[in-house]
């Protein structure tokens, strides 16, 4: 039994709150993960048992286990109650159908947020009227009010909406998962995580009525924010304005797609988001500033919190921002209450506060990313830097009379970075003894030089950046399918550039009140910095380190992602135990444990990054997956032997996401098709084929070409002049891929399966219209699949009348089930068992048309709409035919 009061050497018992928070989180994980996979329970049990190896104290084990149970209990209670109340519940239960019009009464949570072509309203509803019934309710609605016309703009200006106003709005509410494919992020989950019950697009300002005015203190702050937003838009070019507004005010609506992509490719997008890390950094800056004003810790606490919460309120107090600000306040409480506050403890306390309030947040990627990055910095990077610094800058003092014990290479690096001869001589002068100190030659050479100052800063930033990457690796791969090799460098100037740019922009705006001319130079400085930053980042990602997109493992192998944190935790604990000023030489076991865990970390990281065997095992079956891309077509053909062919990639969305100057919204190719392929484990698609250059077929392929390793590209013709095709061709050229034109009569062989091209006809130049779409007949022994693109009755008649057989077991119905196709003769000649219609759930064109469905069913084909059933997968070994659906997997 320990009788001394020496601080425990065990870092976990030195930070009890952190250990408790970890135990609580683990309990939540067990409860939340229980439904997913019972293997996790076993995993958890083993962990608890393993912990008894470290904690000889039974009391510790009991306390931790009880918190694990508490976590599981709280999570269970939270999940049995509905995650959201009010409108979300009404819509999930089906009492209000998504897409139906309602009238809501509520108050505005926020000033209307400016965006391109309209404003966003955040309404906290208290009453709803649906189909003649009026009921009290609750919930947060995020609505977009379009102001395209002058009448609308005038109407909005006359309304003078501000935060707190009571409004009555008639709109169609939406809360549904639109793309039902494996890999696509569920819209409903995403809304739940952001604390939003439903979204809506208000078709006209006339549907909004203000029924009550309200003046609150917040309204002045928000009006100021929107006025500032307006000024920034007026005085800056679109690109710079987008970046300044995103990083300063949390308004991402004006970000251009090009800028967004540049930041994403370099893993520096977080500087554009008012995220937890952002709040923490600003909070840290505020704290540093406040510390200079007063040394009274209580005053520091009050002022820092006041400034930080004011900033958080100004940028809108969305859930992630609120969470980060709360964590900061709890963190600060620890700092001000105790002099020797352990930052890890404060972090634990903050995390515990959030998890007790919203246990489901443990599974929220936003929470995970914020928490992990802060943990990486204060739990690993800062202590490591501190230890290296104390090793390098060591001189005999009362606290550390003996030299540090460290390996020679470590000492050399530490002294090169931190040894200072000047400080040693001034320290020596104050003593009443003299001595010669032994330092490495390199350390003495670099002491007090400018090179040392730069090297020191680079080292510190490098360690911080590297630690964050290390801790976030599985999260980055699972959520963004990215790992930026350039990010160590990119983060250096992206962050600095954004700070400098915001400084110049704000100064420019302030100066513009006095002198417009002078203001212009500040604004152009800001624009210049933007250009420089984007140029440098583009060079990094396009010429030096190409960004790599990474697929994921699913099923059993998905365990490597949480498993990665075990050796990482081991390594971090060993690093924490390392104390260069310990009186004994560190135990061999600690050192070997450190090396061992480092090897495991590196090994698992390599597995995650290079993803060997992530692709599905090649079978002797031919498989076709018809994807749900809303309005559009996209099918993945997997040949026997494993090669893949992607026929069309969808692409039509509300905004034309491909236009780089438009809003930064992900296109279908990225959000649906690429996610599907990554979920399956592919980073290569052997062949890409575009049937015709319509936006809803080809736009997605342009993004797929950028995200995957493609071997060959097939098209029906060279359609220069068609914008969408030119972008597609440019993407292929950038990757150095040949674009091969195929036409009727060509037959390609893949592992036994034959692909025959039936259209466009040979002998003439193909046109860019629907009737010249590529038509393919894919055959494996006795079974065949017919892909028809968007052909109309004219081509169908030609195929009907021709000698080639068009009989197929599975037909992809042409043109999304429009009545301009699926003529009677075509339906009869194809004689299909299954007719698959790729069309969205609510097609704006009314597809599929009733008569088309009847036509196919009359001939005896089973008709399936991809929009209704989700991804439809048909596979064959040459004789059988198996069909499965996203909403009903094959048993």
């Amino acid at each position: 039994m320990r009788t001394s009061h020496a601080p425990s050497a065990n870092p976990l018992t030195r930070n009890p709150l952190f250990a408790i928070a970890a135990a609580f989180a683990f309990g939540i994980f067990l409860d939340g993960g229980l439904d997913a996979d019972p293997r996790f329970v076993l995993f958890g049990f083993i962990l608890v048992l393993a912990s008894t190896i470290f904690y000889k104290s039974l009391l510790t084990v009991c306390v931790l286990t009880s918190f694990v149970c508490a976590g599981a209990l709280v999570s269970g209670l939270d999940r049995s109650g509905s995650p959201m109340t009010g409108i979300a519940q009404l819509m999930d239960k089906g009492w209000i159908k998504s897409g139906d019009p309602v009238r809501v009464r509520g108050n505005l949570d926020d000033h209307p947020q400016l965006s391109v072509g309209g404003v966003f309203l955040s309404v906290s509803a208290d009453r709803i009227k649906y189909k003649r019934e009026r009921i009290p309710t609750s919930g947060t609605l995020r609505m977009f009010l379009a102001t395209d016309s002058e009448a609308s703009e005038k109407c909005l200006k006359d309304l003078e909406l501000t935060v707190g106003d009571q409004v009555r709005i008639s709109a169609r509410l939406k809360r549904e998962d639109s793309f039902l494919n494996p890999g696509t992020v569920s819209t409903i989950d995403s809304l739940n995580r952001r604390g939003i019950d439903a979204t809506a697009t208000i078709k006209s300002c006339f549907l909004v009525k203000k029924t009550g005015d309200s003046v609150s203190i917040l309204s002045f702050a928000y009006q100021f924010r929107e006025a500032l937003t307006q000024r920034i838009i007026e005085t800056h070019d679109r690109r710079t304005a987008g970046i300044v507004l995103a990083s300063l005010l949390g308004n991402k609506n004006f970000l251009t797609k090009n800028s967004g992509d540049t930041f994403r490719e370099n893993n520096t997008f977080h500087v554009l988001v008012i995220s937890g890390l952002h709040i923490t950094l600003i909070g840290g800056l505020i704290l540093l500033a406040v510390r200079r004003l007063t040394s009274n810790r209580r005053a520091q606490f009050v002022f820092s919190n006041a400034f930080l919460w004011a900033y958080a309120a100004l940028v809108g107090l969305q859930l992630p921002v609120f969470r980060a600000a709360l964590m900061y306040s709890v963190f600060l409480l620890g700092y001000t209450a105790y002099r020797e506050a352990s930052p890890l403890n404060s972090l634990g306390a903050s995390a515990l506060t959030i998890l007790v309030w919203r246990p489901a947040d443990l599974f929220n990627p936003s929470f995970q990313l914020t928490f992990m990055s802060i943990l990486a910095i204060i739990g690993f990077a800062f202590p490591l830097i501190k230890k290296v610094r104390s090793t390098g800058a060591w001189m005999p003092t009362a606290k550390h009379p003996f030299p540090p014990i460290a390996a020679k290479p470590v000492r050399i690096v530490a002294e090169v970075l931190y040894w200072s001869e000047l400080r040693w001589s001034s320290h020596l002068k104050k003593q009443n003894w003299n001595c010669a100190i032994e330092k490495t030659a390199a350390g003495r050479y670099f002491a007090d030089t400018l090179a040392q100052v730069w090297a020191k800063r680079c080292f510190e930033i490098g360690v911080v950046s590297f630690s964050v990457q290390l801790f976030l690796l599985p999260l980055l791969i699972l959520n963004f399918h990215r790992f930026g090799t350039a990010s160590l460098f990119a983060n250096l100037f992206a962050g600095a550039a954004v700070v400098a740019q915001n400084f110049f922009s704000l100064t420019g705006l302030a100066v513009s009140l006095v002198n417009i001319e002078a203001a212009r130079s500040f604004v152009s400085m800001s624009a210049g910095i933007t250009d420089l930053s984007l140029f440098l980042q583009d060079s990094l990602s396009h010429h030096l380190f190409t960004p790599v997109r990474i697929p994921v493992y699913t099923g059993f192998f998905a365990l490597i992602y949480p498993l990665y944190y075990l050796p990482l935790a081991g390594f971090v604990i060993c690093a924490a135990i390392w104390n260069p000023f310990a009186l004994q030489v560190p135990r061999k076991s600690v050192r070997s444990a450190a090396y061992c865990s480092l090897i495991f970390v590196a090994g698992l990281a390599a597995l995650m990054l290079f993803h060997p065997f992530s692709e599905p095992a090649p079978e002797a079956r031919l498989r076709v997956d018809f994807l749900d891309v809303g309005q559009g077509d996209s099918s993945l053909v997997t040949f026997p032997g494993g090669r893949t062919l992607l026929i069309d990639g969808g692409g039509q969305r509300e905004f034309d996401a491909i236009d780089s100057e438009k809003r930064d919204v992900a296109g279908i190719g990225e959000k649906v098709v690429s996610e599907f392929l990554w979920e399956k484990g592919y980073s290569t698609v052997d062949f890409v084929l575009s049937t015709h250059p319509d936006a809803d077929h080809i736009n997605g392929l342009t993004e797929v070409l950028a995200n995957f390793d493609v071997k060959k590209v097939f098209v029906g013709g060279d359609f220069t002049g068609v914008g969408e095709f030119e972008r597609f061709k440019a993407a292929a050229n950038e990757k150095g891929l040949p674009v091969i034109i195929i036409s009727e009569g060509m037959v390609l062989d893949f592992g036994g399966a034959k692909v025959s091209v039936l259209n466009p006809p040979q002998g003439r130049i193909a046109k860019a219209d629907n009737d010249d779409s590529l038509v393919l007949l894919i055959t494996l022994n006795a079974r065949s699949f017919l892909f028809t693109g968007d052909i109309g009755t004219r081509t169908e008649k030609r195929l009907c009348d021709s000698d080639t057989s068009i009989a197929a077991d599975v037909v992809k119905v042409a043109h999304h089930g429009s009545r301009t196709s699926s003529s009677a003769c075509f339906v009869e000649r194809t004689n299909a068992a299954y007719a698959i219609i790729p069309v969205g759930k609510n097609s704006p064109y009314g597809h599929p048309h009733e008569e088309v469905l009847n036509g196919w069913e009359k001939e005896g084909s089973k008709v399936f709409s991809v929009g209704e059933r989700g991804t439809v997968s048909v596979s064959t070994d040459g004789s059988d035919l198996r069909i499965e659906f996203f909403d009903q997997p094959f048993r």
Partner: protein
Amino acid sequence: MTLLSPKTFCNFTRLSCLTLILLSNACTADSPKPRSGIGGAVAGKGAININTADKPELMRLPGIGPKTAEKILFHRAEFGPFEHKAELILVDGFGEAQYLKLMHLVKTE
């Protein structure tokens, strides 16, 4: 001279009739005559009540054909009467521009 002698009474009546006729003319001169550009089909009798109108009545409005009229009727049956005429914009296929063209010709009660 009395006020109510037969002569003054006749004069008074004539004067009042004249005044009334003049006044009524002035009133009818103020009421808006429908301009042929917008609602040639509407006979200027007054706005159409979109909550009680049937299909032929709705088709008299500018830009409303048989399909749109059916959609309005379906919307009314499914989601209840329109509480405000702007709610026409919520009908499938209806837009703000179309509404602006006929907002002066409809009412909800």
